[in-house]
């Protein structure tokens, strides 16, 4: 456990600017809100601009397999910005989780993901804990797959589903064309990462990885570790937007931001967000370094950042007053994202319990 670098490099700062510029052009809050009413027309071109034009889809893929050969540190910066915009794109599900899984396989799917010409999703509920029980689909004669997995993130955007299948030898992963699966959209708490229930009925699948449990868990661990950076982005938006709002909003003849009770709450929130930054950065750095401490770093980051992002969003709603309760103003997008993120990859109490075992603090 050496001291990992928790700051941002110049390259990472540049990457952040690029992502932020694309989001400013292609991810207007009103267009994001419209997805709650099923209208994605305002987001045309967003994913292509990120995945293909900026090359983010292949960020974690080595150059010799068609990607950018960057590390989890860069992916974390991207997720901070995506969280900041509550952007409805499958970066976490396809370019992180599915990609990390496929890094362990020899498959031509990976270059396609890296190029942004294909998008994949691991067929597990979004709430799956990295070391928790894994659902699995049954495999029948001729590799035909049958079963239902609920609340899958990224399935609606995917053209390929990566399906954990329980076999006699353990858990394998098959690739299934989304076109032959029954993908039913779920009315989700966070429609900016809309879930789907996926049913396979004797669907054709192609074996991608045989002894896959370790790879699946590593992919989920990567998802959990980097989700903390998304949560950081969500919280930063909430803090920055609330501070800006309270500097402008006047009541009782004064800017609300000058009232000491609110100042102190914002100071506490700032303190929390700075702490999130350290925790999220540490998890990303541990993942990038292949550090043995990664499970502890992930559990700490998830336990801390999940709750703090929710606190930040709840404070943002409260401190905006009635405006924060309206559909028109975007703060609710972040409340819903933060609350869903709290459950994604395991609730904070699950991560704290997991930590107890990792650090030898038994009940």
């Amino acid at each position, binding site marked *: 456990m050496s001291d990992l670098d928790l700051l941002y490099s110049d390259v990472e700062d540049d990457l952040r600017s690029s992502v932020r510029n694309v989001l400013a052009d292609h991810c207007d809050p009103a267009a994001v809100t419209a997805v709650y009413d099923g209208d994605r027309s305002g987001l045309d071109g967003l994913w292509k601009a990120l995945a293909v034009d900026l090359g983010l889809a292949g960020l974690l893929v080595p150059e010799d397999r068609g990607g950018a050969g960057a590390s989890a540190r860069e992916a974390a910066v991207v997720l901070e910005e995506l969280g900041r915009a509550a952007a409805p794109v499958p970066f976490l599900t396809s370019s992180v989780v599915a990609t990390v899984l496929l890094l362990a396989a020899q498959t031509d799917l990976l270059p396609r993901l890296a190029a942004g010409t294909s998008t994949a999703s691991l067929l597990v509920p979004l709430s799956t804990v990295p070391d928790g029980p894994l659902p699995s689909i049954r495999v029948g004669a001729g590799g035909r797959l049958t079963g239902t997995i609920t609340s899958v993130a990224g399935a609606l955007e995917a053209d390929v589903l990566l399906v954990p299948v329980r076999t006699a030898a353990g858990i394998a992963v098959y690739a299934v064309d989304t076109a032959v699966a029954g993908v039913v959209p779920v*009315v*989700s708490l966070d429609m900016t990462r809309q*879930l789907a229930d996926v049913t396979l009925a004797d669907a054709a699948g192609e074996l991608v990885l045989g002894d896959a449990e370790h790879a699946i868990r590593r992919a989920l661990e990567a998802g959990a570790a980097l989700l903390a950076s998304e949560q950081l982005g969500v919280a930063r938006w909430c803090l920055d937007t609330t501070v800006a709002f309270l500097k402008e909003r006047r*009541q009782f003849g004064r800017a609300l931001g000058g009232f000491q*009770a609110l100042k102190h709450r914002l100071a506490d929130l700032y303190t929390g967000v700075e702490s999130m930054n350290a925790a999220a950065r540490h998890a990303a750095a541990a993942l990038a370094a292949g550090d043995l401490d990664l499970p502890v770093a992930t559990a700490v980051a998830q336990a801390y950042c999940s709750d703090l992002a929710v606190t930040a969003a709840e404070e943002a709603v409260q401190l905006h007053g009635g405006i924060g309760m309206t559909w028109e103003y975007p703060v*609710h997008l972040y*409340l*819903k994202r933060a609350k869903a993120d709290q459950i994604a990859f395991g609730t904070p109490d699950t991560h704290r319990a997991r930590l107890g075992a990792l650090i030898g603090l038994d009940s």
Partner: protein
Amino acid sequence: MNDDLPEELHRRVERFLAAHDPATTERLTWLRARFDAGLAWVSFPAGLGGLGLPQALQAEVDGLFDDAGAPDNRKKANGIGLGMAAPTILRFGTDAQKQRFLRPLWTGEEIWCQLFSEPGAGSDLAAVATRAVRDGDTWVVSGQKVWTSGAHHARFAILLARTNPDVPKHGGLTYFLCDMTDPGVDVRPLRQITGEAEFNEVFLTDVSIPDSHRLGAEGAGWKVANATLNNERVAIGGRAALRESGMIGEVVDTWRTNPQRRTPELHARLLGLWVEAEVARLTGQRLRQKLALGQPGPEGATMKLTFARLNQQLSGLELELLGEDGLRYSDWSMTRPDKVDMTGRDAGYRYLRARGNSIEGGTSEILRNIIAERLLGLPAEPRVDKDIPWKELPR
């Protein structure tokens, strides 16, 4: 409990029921008769629906009528009318106003809403900018109101408007009773974070209000509005409750029916909130006992603070407890609910809706100011706008 009800009142209810069988009497006829018999709100004066009896007897009279199958006077749809408009009209109204408004209000023939908050006047309610200009015997009112519940069903509104911009802001307000059918009134749904539109924005354009619908003196609007708001806060905090009712009941149900999702931490947190909910219930009980002895006060503010915080913590915990199911929502489509049922619908709705509990009817921040200043006697905030004419204030 009927033992506590004075015998004479008990007999009066029985005589009324004997003469007006709820099963066979037409609904409105029955309700009007009950009002005229002084059995509507027993603490109101005779002739105005009451008998001048202690407020404490009301719940028991209602219970007797409920047991007899009495028709409902649209209590839930007319909460603002019954809880806020009626006591304010009783206290500040002219005889003519009381005669005109109280009976159809109580019977539910006329539903009321409240036109107080504005985009620029939320916590700082005295900053309302809606203008009322006198023109002979009428007032011409223009402005924008927000967070109006039930405006699309309401016949009348209690309205706060600025009649004099040349004096400091608290002194230039007047309180009106506004006819919502006036052509200048435009009610538009205000969609909120749950997806639905429980509230409205109300745009007022040259609405005519006769001076006879002014409640209280010109310029006395702030005092009258404060009386209304105190009623609101007592109403919110003052409900009787059974153990494990309300939001805690929902979460306990979820806990009991989801054994596979239980963890030691969630158990500890739920027990902690159970204790707090039970203590809040007892605090409400103690407050009602005080009120019954005629010791009312701003203590109701503490109940509203606690109620908001607990609803929020409990509904937040419920989603964590539900895990995967907590990621799912019922319906985002824009609907217009007739009433708010915090414990109905799904856990996601409860979580989102409960965020408003610490904003509506006085933010928790304003309530803390009230508690600190009125109950603890701490100094008021430095006020920069107290002595400046309203029109000169920066906005």
